[in-house]
């Protein structure tokens, strides 16, 4: 029986405590994830770590128990504390990733499976979470689509950070080929432009497009919840596994909205996105979803990208943006709020 367990917590750990935890995770064949915001370690009387767990936003991570101490309820202690910490931060919808063989343990701690791939089991602490999200998507669509042709339905998932003429072009190409397009904007608030601004700029820019239905991705598509990397050793494999999980989740949601094709812009710049697109081409057809890559719209021979727009916002001549973004985005960029935003990037 364990009597003297020592608790250590950090927001997150640094220095010796951090290196000790990394060392412990390494022994457990896990990686420490750099985005972690809160960690908890349990130590025995000799000050050796016997278990630990971490939290990044609403995702529980890097949970491990030393093999000598398994079966004593330590996982429950760690998960209880992580869950409470998340609740104290006002987050009630929680996720975790684990190896598929840990399923029973986490089910006992109030988590439910969403999806399992070969390497990863993705769980949430709500029985109905994904189902409720799909219900919401349907509600957002049904009233609009009622009584109109709906033979071919497509989807686009985009960050729009911020919305450019390139996005507009991609959506136009997609709507030309479909009766309806579901446009999913990433909900994760980790981009240069805050989520509500990105969403609002998209909403304004597509006002004239009657057959586009705007959604938020919530936690279920390309969120920090669906892109874990920490417990897979080779990083290249990790990215592949992440892509697979995210895409399989998309493949689960798509048929509920009768989506049969996903449109994506070609990716000339970002390596992660380009390998994500590659994975998309491989995985979605397995589920009967077609993938259409649309060449990016160009300005003076160069593909338009949101990252280029952000660069110009910081250093360049704002006038050149007029050719790259719609009027609504431009107005935001030159507004006081937009200027404040650029300043905040520099700090």
């Amino acid at each position, binding site marked *: 029986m364990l009597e003297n367990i020592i608790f250590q917590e950090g927001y997150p750990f640094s220095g010796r405590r951090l290196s000790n935890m990394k060392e412990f995770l390494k022994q457990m064949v896990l990686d420490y994830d750099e985005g972690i915001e809160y960690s908890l370690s349990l130590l025995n009387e000799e000050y050796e770590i016997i278990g630990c767990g971490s939290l990044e936003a609403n995702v529980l991570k890097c949970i491990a128990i030393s093999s000598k101490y398994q079966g004593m309820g330590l996982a429950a202690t760690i998960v*209880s504390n992580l869950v*409470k910490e998340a*609740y*104290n931060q006002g987050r*009630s919808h929680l996720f975790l990733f684990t190896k598929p063989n840990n399923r029973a343990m986490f089910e006992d701690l109030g988590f439910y499976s969403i999806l399992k791939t070969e390497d990863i089991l993705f769980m949430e602490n709500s029985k109905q979470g994904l189902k409720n999200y799909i219900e919401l998507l349907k509600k957002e669509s049904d009233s609009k689509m009622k009584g109109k042709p709906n033979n071919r339905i497509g989807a686009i998932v985009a960050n729009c950070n911020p919305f450019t003429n390139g996005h507009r072009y991609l959506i136009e190409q997609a709507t030309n080929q479909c009766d309806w397009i579901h446009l999913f904007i990433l909900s994760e608030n980790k981009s240069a432009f805050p989520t509500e601004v990105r969403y609002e700029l998209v909403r304004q820019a597509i006002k004239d497009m009657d057959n586009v239905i705007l959604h938020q991705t919530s936690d279920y598509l390309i969120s920090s919840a669906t892109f874990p990397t920490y417990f897979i050793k080779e990083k290249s494999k990790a990215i592949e596994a992440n892509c697979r999980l995210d895409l399989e989740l998309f493949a689960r949601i798509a048929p509920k909205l009768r989506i049969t094709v996903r449109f994506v812009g070609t990716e000339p710049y970002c390596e992660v996105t380009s390998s994500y697109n590659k994975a998309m081409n491989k995985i979605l057809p397995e589920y009967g979803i077609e993938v259409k890559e649309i060449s990016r719209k160009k300005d003076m021979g160069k593909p338009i990208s949101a990252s280029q727009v952000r660069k110009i916002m910081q250093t360049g001549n704002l006038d050149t943006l007029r050719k790259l973004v719609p009027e609504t985005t431009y107005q935001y960029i030159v507004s006081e709020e937009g200027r404040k935003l650029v300043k905040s990037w520099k700090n």
Partner: protein
Amino acid sequence: MEIKHIGTAGTMGSSDILVTIEKISNGIDISLNSSVEKQFGNQIRSVIAECIKNSGIENAKVTAVDKGALDCVIRARVETAVYRACDSQDYVWRGIK
């Protein structure tokens, strides 16, 4: 009393129950995950429902992860979670009215 934010009480340790209460707009929704669901699931739900009803709260989502807690423990945890969710310290234990 009115729910102001998420309130939580308890642990997932053996013989305990972790209760979380948050605001929703449409009635009482109790979601239970219990190691003794088959034997006592309905009993646990009814104890939780009764506590919530006594507290006068009409709209709440209650999530509970139970590890075989006795009824008295369940009541204590639910009552505490309610007080915490409401930022209230006007404690009247065993029977929020």
